[in-house]
């Protein structure tokens, strides 16, 4: 009930507030929607490449081998071992993580524990190495000092806490 209210409430509140501020709400909506379409168009080519690779890896049995390998560690951390591949690819590739994550969600169900943990992991972490490369590359930094270990610890804590919060809320 509460969550089914969130979406219409946000949309309605934003539209009313913006209209009050004399914003052309409809034009803004369509401009933004066009940006969203561009995002989809931009992620489709890498998604084709990466989902092909992920499907091949899964069919070869390599993914379940990786899962088996990581299961003891992940179980100890309270993380569902089925998310092993996602954890592996998350810091390197955003579309790769989306590819793997949506596969897991579709396989185990959006409302399953595994599906929810996957969604929370996807929603609360970023493509760390990409961000580091973009920012430090743009300003010509060679020595990154503690940036990489700190950002990766944030990711690791995110993966662990994702499993905990899903258990708490559902």
């Amino acid at each position, binding site marked *: 009930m509460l969550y089914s209210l969130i979406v219409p409430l946000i949309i309605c509140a934003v539209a009313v507030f913006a209209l009050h501020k004399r914003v052309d709400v409809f034009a*803004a909506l369509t401009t933004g*929607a066009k940006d969203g379409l561009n995002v989809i168009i931009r992620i489709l080519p890498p998604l084709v490449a990466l989902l092909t690779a992920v*499907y091949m890896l899964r069919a*070869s049995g390599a993914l379940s081998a990786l899962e088996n390998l990581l299961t003891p560690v992940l179980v100890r951390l309270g993380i569902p071992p089925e998310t092993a591949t996602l954890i592996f690819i998350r810091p390197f590739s955003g579309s790769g993580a989306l590819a793997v994550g949506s596969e897991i969600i579709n396989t185990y169900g959006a409302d399953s524990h595994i599906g929810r943990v996957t969604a929370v992991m996807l929603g609360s972490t970023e493509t760390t190495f990409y961000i580091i490369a973009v920012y430090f590359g743009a300003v010509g930094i060679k020595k990154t000092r503690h940036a990489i270990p700190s950002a990766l*610890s944030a990711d690791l804590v*995110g993966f662990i806490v994702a499993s905990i919060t899903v258990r708490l809320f559902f």
Partner: protein
Amino acid sequence: MAMAWIWTAMIAFSVIFGLLSGNIDAVGASALDGAAAAVTLCIAICGATMLWSGIMEIMRQAGLAQKLSKSFRPVLNKLFPQTRENEDAMEALSANVSANLLGLGNAATPLGIRAASEMAKMTKRKTASDDLCMLVILNSASIQLIPATVAAVRASAGASAPFDILPAVWITSVTSLVAGITVSKLLRRFSKRGDRD
């Protein structure tokens, strides 16, 4: 180039593993399935992604991003003590944070880079300053209010309430960001020597 290596390794690994495990037939069949699944996924999440991008654009035009920026200044001043006095950098930085919060990735990155180049100018070194590291940590922790793409994926997979993960996502994001900041504050003492090059 990193992705070239990762992707080739994934393909090579699945061929080798498929040959060894006798699953090579399935590997061949699944390659095209994967490519088709990418298109299915994009179509499935396209509508919701476009809608949320539109809503976020309305928020931006209504000045919500600037309001957010202002409210974050006190926190950012504490997190970025070396940059605090540099008005241009702090303005770009708070705009970067609020764009991230609203999920406006396209707008966030150029703003963040503007803040980063101001910070780099202040040190004039090839070594990252504490503040520059903090900027990267802040951006590599996902802090968006509405994870629209994930919700779209959940909706397309038949979730009863795609947004019911919001509180869990918020708590997880904040915890992981706090962890990143804490680790960086601990580590910066040990990496002080690298400050001079």
